């Protein structure tokens, strides 16, 4: 099996990678701040035009580009994230304060584990995070061996947009430094996974011991340049 290498039929490779995204989709967007943020794929999703979206991402956009630009189009109904408020999150702040976007705040570890659970076929899990806090509201509480836990459900995506460093033609991925962040768990948690990479190498080139995301999870790959696809 090989992943589809998107080099741009009728647009850019990025457009090809997000083609067919339906209105109402849940889109997982990788990145922690700008590290690992798949900016070009998000820009392509803006051009693609799907609306009524639910976005799952650690932050709610920085500055005016990438995720912030997508939010600014008004096509995002709901965002699920751990840390929306940042010094440069003015696009989100304005939408939230004027009631034009729904927000679900999820502790970062629960966000990661809920994505992991979705990808791993886990129906739900008990987490000790947020017990006794306002974020426990409405959640099932259970005591196990003297410790209190909250029931947390998986987060499934229709589409995941992530950024990795190198892919091979089978879709095996290697990341770079802390830009790895949400990529590996999001890659497991969505029906369609689109990855932008700095370069694509021939199958057999990556050290199998160093592969972080096995190609089974990856559907579409966009190399940063045509040369990079060689």
């Amino acid at each position, binding site marked *: 099996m090989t992943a589809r290498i998107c080099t741009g039929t009728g647009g850019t490779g990025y457009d090809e990678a997000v083609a067919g995204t339906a209105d109402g989709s849940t889109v997982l967007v990788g990145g*922690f*701040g*700008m*590290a*690992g943020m798949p900016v070009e794929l998000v820009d392509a999703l803006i051009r693609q035009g799907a609306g009524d979206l639910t976005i799952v991402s*650690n932050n709610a956009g920085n500055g005016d580009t990438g995720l912030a630009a997508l939010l600014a189009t008004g096509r995002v109904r709901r965002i699920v994230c*751990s*840390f*929306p*408020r*940042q010094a440069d999150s003015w696009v*989100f*702040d304005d939408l*939230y*304060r004027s009631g034009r976007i729904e*927000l679900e*705040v*999820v*502790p*970062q*570890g*629960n*966000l*990661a*584990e809920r*994505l*992991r659970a979705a990808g791993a076929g886990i129906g739900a899990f008990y*987490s*000790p*995070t*947020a*017990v*006794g*806090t*306002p*974020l426990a509201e409405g959640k099932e509480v259970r005591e196990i061996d003297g410790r209190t836990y909250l029931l947390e459900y998986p987060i499934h995506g229709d589409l995941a947009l992530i950024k990795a460093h190198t892919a091979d033609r089978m879709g095996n991925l290697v*990341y*770079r*430094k*802390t*830009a*790895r*962040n*949400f*990529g*590996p*768990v999001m890659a497991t948690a969505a029906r369609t996974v689109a990855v932008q990479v700095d370069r694509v190498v021939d199958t057999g080139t990556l050290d199998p011991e160093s592969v*972080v995301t096995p190609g089974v999870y990856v559907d579409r790959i966009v190399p940063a340049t045509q040369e990079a696809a060689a």
Partner: protein
Amino acid sequence: MSARTKDDIAAAIARDITAEHPDGAYVNLGIGQPTLVADHLPHDSGVVLHTENGMLAMGPAAHGDDIDPDLINAGKIPVTELPGAAYFHQADSFAMMRGGHLDVCVLGAFQVSAGGDLANWHTGAPDAIPAVGGAMDLAIGAKRVWVMMTLFDKQGASKLVPTCTYPLTGVGCIERVYTDLGTFAVGPSGVHALEINGIDIDDLVERMAPLELHLDRVVRAGGDR
């Protein structure tokens, strides 16, 4: 003796981490002031820093040509890697936190209760945008969770309180609180001053009231240093 500066507080935390973990420790420093602790850890302390966005053996802040946009800390500041560094994804990063594999975590706070509850993520103000990040996972995850903060807020009210009035981050999770005016143990037996800096003990007791401050464990106070 005067009140402690931010650097003095950070130095005190670093001193206690190394003294109480002579064989080294895995430590997470929260964003903001707690990151100063790193500057005071001796190179041979054996302390390995964890950053929640997916790295162990994080090095100091990066400058100039060393800045790499793919290598940042939890506060999104460019950092460096030390020999022995490891990268991992978010689910692993929080598994090692929640699973009790980190020895010490140092966090900032709006309020800490006598029983060790922490409030540090949300002021509860109606127009405030809630943002929790990793705070709730960190608060209940590490084996020992310490707070670094000023003892009094800008209005002069104690941030060590009988019961938190701000929304909670975690319940009964804090072991110790380091402030400009002293270090305090908190927990089931209430608040015990361990060290008092730059303030007369009677003044401190009065300003922290109605909180009951126990003085049975003070090892350093006033001008004896």
